[in-house]
């Protein structure tokens, strides 16, 4: 570290120190610039994707709620009623009615 500071202290001609030079080379290299652009693009695309997935999920969810949930509830009730009827028929000893399809 002392040698570095001495090296840094040696360059008095207005140039930057070695550390600053190294970091500036790294940050101004083309790879890093490309990397930044790609990262911002990826963030943009991910945000849009999340939004559109959210919208799609909302549409799918509400449509499912309106179209399918009453159907499930009613079919369940129908099945319960059928079971109750078969049970009653077997308990009372009456000949069981053929299940209506």
């Amino acid at each position: 570290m002392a040698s570095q500071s001495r090296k840094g202290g040696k360059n008095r001609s207005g140039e930057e120190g070695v550390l600053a030079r190294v970091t500036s080379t790294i940050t101004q290299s083309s790879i890093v610039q490309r990397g930044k652009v790609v990262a911002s693009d990826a963030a943009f695309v991910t945000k849009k994707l999340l939004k559109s997935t959210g919208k799609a999920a909302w549409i799918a969810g509400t449509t499912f709620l309106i179209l399918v949930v009453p159907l499930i509830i009613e079919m369940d009730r129908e099945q319960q009623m059928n079971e109750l009827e078969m049970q009653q028929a077997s308990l009372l000893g009456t000949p069981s009615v053929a299940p209506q399809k």
Partner: protein
Amino acid sequence: MASHVGLVPPTPAPYKDNEPKAAEKIDYLNLPCPIPYEEIHREALMSLKPELFEGMRFDFTKGLNQKFSLSHSVFMGPMEVPSQATETIKIPTAHYEFGANFLDPKLMLFGRILTDGRLNARMKCDLTDNLSLKANAQLTNEPHMSHGMVNFDYKGKDFRTQFQLGNGALFGASYIQSVTPHLSLGSEVFWAGQHRKSGIGLAARYNNDKMVATGQVASTGMVALSYVQKVSEKVSLASDFMYNYMSRDVTASFGYDYILRQCRLRGKIDSNGCTAAFLEERLNMGLNFILSAEIDHWKKDYKFGFGLTVGE
């Protein structure tokens, strides 16, 4: 074909063997009477277009006699007002409707009057076995908005014809004929004097035990196809395709119709981004509970309604 029936031997067992053969031979002189022309899309309409509403609805029907009954109905909810802007304007309204029905084997009278002054009247009379007269009228307070229509229907052995007269110089005629036991074809013409428009339309309907397929083309630019499949006794699925070749408007919709013991549930989804469901549940004898839901994802218009129907 008539002679083939005479060849069937009288003993029961061979008769059963010959029965499927007799069913395959079509007796062209004994075709069934077709469905009336305006009801050609009947099954698809029943499954795909229930009476969706928004708000609260209460209907009470009381029979005074075997033939005569009165009905009271209350409706409270937002009504859509057509406006030029793309947004629909909804105005909350409430009205009470009083009605009377008279039902006879030969004559049927039906009248309804609303608190905002609209009168709705329908009459159906069987003049003879084959000829029947139907009339309906809607009268309103606003001038030039009332209209009435009279229909004469003649039912032949395997055809039906209808002649229609309406106010505003509206004339129409339609004819439908059974071509095979399953297929019937029909056509109609109409002339509207007030708008100076005339049109011709053709329709076909193929009927089976399990499915019904219909197609209709009209010179007003409308092409409508529909297909209903009866999957089981309780379930039927329907689909419908409508195309207007003048205005390039296309709509397709799919729906289901579940008729269970305690309820009837109809659901549909549209290509306009619209889904709807309609549930009629029988709570008790003569007591029906109705729920209606319609979601339009495109226009972000949500309509929900509930109601109760009392009476037979």
